[in-house]
């Protein structure tokens, strides 16, 4: 049951009387102890067992790079990689992920070197507000891992579960294509039309 912690005091806020007031009874929360493998690190977490991977990654591990747009599995914003496959972290319980390798946007870079997708997205303005970007980068990196030279149609399909409201997806397609080209030729440059539009 709830416990009443009378020894702790409320901070003296504005217009608060000096008399100590008790804290409200705090809810008792059962916690599960988990071992998660995130971005190559093994991390121990104690969290409520009903928490989703999204919540644990953001709130317990402090990896706020993973975003959320609906928490209902509708928008793809919270996509992370579990065992190399893009998954909606809002629909997965953290409990289900013990000992399964998880990659979030924070784990895409190799040390200080950004993933080629990250560089290409930044260069082409494929991240406008940047909010759907972490999920799309995870989905796109899984695509490139399995298919280093995807067609435009394959990119569309791979990202069809990720909503973006800023870009109209086009710069995203072009950035994935640029990153794919750079896997073969690190010096590959974006097309002129991508950067300047079509010349009149």
């Amino acid at each position, binding site marked *: 049951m709830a416990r009443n912690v009378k020894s702790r005091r409320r901070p003296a806020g504005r217009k608060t009387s000096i008399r100590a007031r008790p804290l409200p009874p705090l809810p008792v929360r059962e916690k599960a102890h988990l071992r998660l493998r995130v971005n190559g690190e093994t991390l121990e977490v104690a969290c409520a067992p009903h928490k989703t991977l999204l919540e644990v990654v953001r709130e317990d591990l402090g990896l706020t790079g993973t975003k959320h747009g609906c928490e209902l599995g509708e928008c793809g914003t919270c996509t992370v990689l579990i065992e190399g496959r893009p998954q909606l972290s809002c629909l997965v319980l953290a409990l289900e992920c013990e000992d399964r390798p998880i990659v979030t946007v924070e784990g895409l870079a190799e040390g200080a070197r950004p993933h080629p997708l990250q560089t290409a997205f930044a260069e082409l303005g494929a991240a406008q507000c940047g909010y759907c970007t972490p999920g799309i980068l995870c989905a796109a990196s899984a695509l490139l891992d399995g298919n280093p030279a995807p067609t435009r149609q394959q990119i569309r399909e791979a990202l069809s579960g990720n909503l973006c*409201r800023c870009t109209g997806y086009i710069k995203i397609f072009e950035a994935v294509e640029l990153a794919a080209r750079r896997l073969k030729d690190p010096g590959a440059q974006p097309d002129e039309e991508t950067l300047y539009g079509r010349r009149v």
Partner: protein
Amino acid sequence: MAAASRGPGGAAARPGDRGLRVVGTPVRKVDGLSKCAGVTKFADDIVLPRMLFCKLLRAPVPHARIVRVDTSKASKMPGVFAVLTGRDLPIPFGILPVSQDEHALCPDRVRFVGDPVAAVAAVDEDAAFDAMNAIAVEYEPLEPILSIEKAIATPSPRIHDYGDEGNIHKRVALEFGDVDRAFRESDEIFEDVLFYEGNTHLAMEQHAAVAAVDPDGKVTVWSSTQTPHYVHRALAKVLEMSPAHVRVIACPNGGGFGGKSDPFNHEIVVARLSQMTGRPVKITLTREEVFYCHRGRHPVLMSIRTGVNRNGRIRAMDFKSYLDGGGYGSYGVASTYYTGALQTVTYQVETYRFQGARVFTNKPPCGPKRGHGTPQPRFALEVQMDKIAERLRIDPADLRLRHLVPPDSLTTNFMRVGSMGLGKCIEAVVAGSGWKEKFGRLPHGKGVGLACSSYICGAGLPIYWNNMPHTGVQLKLDRGGGVAAFCGEIDIGQGSDTVLAQVVAEVLGIDPYDIRIVFGDTDLTPVDLGSYSSRVTLMMGNAAIQAAERARELLAKAAAEKLGVPVEQVGFGGRRVFDVSDPGRGMAFAEAVVLAEAKFGTLGTVGSYTPPPSAARYKGAGVGPSPAYSYSAAVVELDVDPCTGWIRVERVHLAHDVGRSINPVLVVGQIEGSVYMGLGEALMEEQVFRANRNGVHKNPSLLEYKSPTTMEMPDVVSYIIEDPDPNGPFGAKEVGQGPLLPIPPAVVNAVHDAIGVRIDEVPVTPEKILRALDSPAKRFGPKGVPSLRWPEPIRVAPPGDGGAGRPVEAAPADRGTRR
């Protein structure tokens, strides 16, 4: 070149424009890598020690009196620190001074399903949620009003106790020239009734805010807001605090599109809860709640009557709009005027009458969404232009080319147009799409459609009446050669941080990545009115030029002394300051800073920008005037399956006159994003409610509210047209909103070209196409408009008739141009 060669905003006078190094190049956004690394801190990413979580209890009924709110059970629940109701925050607020009609929590009346009634702060979200559900509210239902027609027909019960009449929030009427005579003299008169359904911004980031109170009582609110300055004002007002003790920090917005431009209930609530508990308090709205915050596109019913002569020249236009405003004022008065303001800026219209009415209904409040009040009339006019072209047997592109507004002119309603690149835009999309070979010549089921538009580059007048600048930029120069630029602007994804860095870098001859941007913080940054109305690039850009030129002048003086040359001979570039006659002679930028600091003391400069005064001096002219206008033209290529009504858009050509592109890759990105959003509005997006289910939202989720995915998005061919405007920084105009405007009508016109039906209503769904195919008139759309008692119009003689921008009858002292 001399730094003092022009005043603020006089970009056209800049010598050596062709020598621009940073402006005009597709540099990587200054925040690009941070966003791709996932380190950009959005509002919900902020975590503070001892932070509590807030939930809002929202009304389940559309229209009711609050009889009783019982919080006794909730406040005793485990983990609950505070419970708030409307009585605790009695002071109203609202974005416009004329409609301060919102409360942080409804004190006595709820006006839509989702209107917040009570709030809880608890130790975690689960505890807050449980406590929220334990609050008991007793409602006395009132008749819900859920349509424009019903609002006009039902003066009582009134949703608000203010407004022009009954449930009509605002009625306006303006007339420029002798419209009736021009109609009598017209060869042909076209009349149409059209409807534009409402839709919402659907930014991927849900609104979030965190408030924290200092031990000395000062309050800080971090929020996903496009308008920190207005949130600052609203907080100070409702909390009854000195603005000096309230700090608002705008976090980078995870998409805005206008949906984060109002001060919101939740921002005020968390601030008060933080004051009550002495702890930080956070709220993050659920996706469903974001649909209730709304402030999106007004559903607008329109009638448009246009008189033309035989060669298609528009002699007279009579435009009526009926806006479904939802439960509160929001920006609605401005939205109403915007439905009438820009018809004359896109095309020459000799005489023009505009009547607009906004009604209150029991739905989430409508407000500004990308294009604010303009896509609806644009849709009406562009679809009608297509019909005029068809009847007069003129190519739709040629008809529009006959109506170009001359550059450097005053429109019929006294908007001052500077540069005007619409002709070039039309030519670009016509040539690029193969329009002449395709229009009217494609096989049944395939079609092309064309439409055009214009848009403001910032509002000429502020939202609240004052004579201060609309934006300010402050620079601080570091001895190491770095520059910090402070501005109240907030990057909502459009790239305003990058524009600021590029402009400052251009003037000072350094690299954009040498510049540290400090943005959107009411304690630290000069006021910028916010990221709305496509104002930031033009206004902030001009302020940045002024601040940077003042810094440049100081550096040039110090460097000139050292180099032994006249000040005019000092050049800046490549992180160096040098003698332009012998560029090898010079010094590092950082060295010039050291010399200048030694000579003048600590280095800092400021710049600001105020739009030029408007030529329009009549009441209602607070909306429409802008320092410059952008222009766009679009051709949509699509096919329609006549059996299913299914539309597949194949390609969109969009040419946009941006004046000058500061960063072309970001300009193209804004064009593509606008086309995308326009297609969503044209084909599927609708914020709609169930009248037979007590006004609940029909689709408040990302699954049910349809928006285009990667699978629906067609190719977009973007053409950047550069017709530099004298008022723009380096000639730049807006691109964030304008390119959306021609898309819905271009889609509808293409549908007509494909299968011969007229859909006078968006979104164009397969069902509407099939119903049009089955109808004798081959049309789907509204049948008429409700009758309404319009006020006597304010009459203004157009410039061509010798008018001076003032009402014909009014005394010369009348300056009723406030909003």
